[in-house]
């Protein structure tokens, strides 16, 4: 017992010192979180540097605010907690504004509209979202995405397999383990092109558009206002047209042919 007392004291003292010596140096850097696994919006180039629509948007935001930008590659599930704990200043990661997310973080004005689509296995004879909502049908979704939220809220009869990556979801469909995969139209279109023999794409919108916003920590009004000013300015100066031209030329053509509304219109 006598020996225990000093040990306890040392541990208590040590942890107090540890806790008090964390000093967060205030600097001007704007840290932006995104999951670099969603081409062509957030991805990496051959050298491993972040690239894509959201990356350009983040850089433009930094320029507008005259602050250096650091892009943090964070797993999708970790994006909102990173904001909450102040590890990052903003999330630009094709994140849809939802009511549930609004309860924990704040969103900027929407900067893009997206629709969900379906990647369907060719043998499963599904032609609409209604045909999917019945017993015996299986759907794959990526955990935490709006496709996942849509499926859990609307497809009550369907068996839902929530996987951690887009690729796993697609493999489930190509192998026939799942009848369909719900994700945004653009990814569905791209994955269908990659797997033309086994899948077909149902791109007809079956719900209202989803608005993408830039997320910030709750009550960080100052940053939120300047982000909204930036988005307005960026739109007026045709920034999104330049981005479309740079990353999404082919997709824009296809969307125009199908007469679908474009992300940034």
């Amino acid at each position, binding site marked *: 017992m006598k020996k225990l007392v000093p040990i306890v004291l040392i541990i208590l003292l040590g942890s107090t010192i540890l806790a008090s010596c964390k000093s967060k140096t205030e600097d001007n850097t704007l840290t932006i979180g995104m999951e670099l696994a969603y081409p062509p919006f957030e991805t990496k180039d051959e050298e491993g540097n972040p690239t894509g629509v959201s990356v350009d948007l983040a850089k433009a935001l930094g320029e507008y605010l005259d602050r250096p930008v650091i892009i943090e590659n964070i797993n999708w599930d970790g994006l909102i907690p990173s904001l909450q704990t102040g590890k990052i200043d903003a999330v630009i990661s094709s994140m849809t504004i939802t009511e*549930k997310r609004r309860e924990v973080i704040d969103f900027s004005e929407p900067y893009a509209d997206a629709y969900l689509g379906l990647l369907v296995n060719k043998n499963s004879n599904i032609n609409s979202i209604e045909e999917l909502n019945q017993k015996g049908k299986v759907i794959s979704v990526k955990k935490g995405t709006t496709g996942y939220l849509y499926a859990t809220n609307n497809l009550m009869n369907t068996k839902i397999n929530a996987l*951690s990556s887009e690729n*796993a979801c697609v493999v489930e469909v190509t192998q026939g383990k799942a009848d369909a995969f719900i994700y945004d139209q653009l990814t569905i279109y791209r994955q269908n092109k990659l797997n033309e023999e086994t899948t077909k794409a149902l791109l007809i919108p079956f719900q209202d558009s989803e608005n993408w916003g830039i997320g910030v920590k709750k009550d960080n009004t100052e940053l939120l206002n300047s982000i909204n000013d930036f988005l307005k300015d960026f739109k007026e100066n045709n920034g999104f047209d330049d981005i479309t031209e740079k990353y999404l030329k082919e997709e824009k053509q296809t969307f125009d042919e199908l007469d679908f509304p474009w992300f940034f219109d």
Partner: protein
Amino acid sequence: MRRKDRKPTLTNKIISVVLVILILVFFMWLSLNAIGLKLDFSTLLEYRQRLWQGFYMTIIISIGSLFMSLLIGSITAVGQKSNILTIKYLCKAYIQIIRGTPLLVQIFFFYYIIGTAWGVNNRYIAGILILSLFEGAYISEIIRGGLESIGSQQYEIARAIGLNSKKTFKFVTFPILMSHILPALTGQFASIIKDSSLLSVIAVIELTQTIQEITADNFRMFENYIFVGALYFILTFAVSLLSRMFERRYKHEYRTKKHL
């Protein structure tokens, strides 16, 4: 009097346990305070049904894999000593490949390629099989090590006192083996419980998958993961208590008392 000989009294033990808990709680409290995080576990209450199902599934998968991996491990441990070279090399190749690749890679490979090719489409069965194959390789090495640690004199003595091969196994090989490998085996069983969390990548709805789905809904990552960590700890702690019990059973003193 040497201090080592003194056994700790019950009060001493209790005070120490309380102190340890206090230290851990205080450290946790300090850390949370430092980052200004408020935890609210009450949000988990509405998910209790799903949490229970996930917990239950983790137990099922762990127990299933425990028996399967013991079986696979025992067979391949003996197979490694086989006189038929093909069997010997096959067992050795299995162990090298499984021990040399990450579980995550094996899950994807066995589920999407081998599983699809051979029609194992049930993800729970596939999950148990994959986990058993993985842990079996480690258990195989543990058993092999245990078998090799039994000296040849033991068998000579057994023969000298007239034990037949069945009795030799029952009274010599098995108890010595058990007393040698139980601690390592316990660690491996705890690993099974923890490794089952990786099956969430193929959407097996066990504890980790459940918590990831809940996190996608309530965004309370910290509360969720701390809670799940505690649940896993309860399971692994139970395993180590059980093993402590078995360890005592295979001590020589205990067995001597029982059989004499």
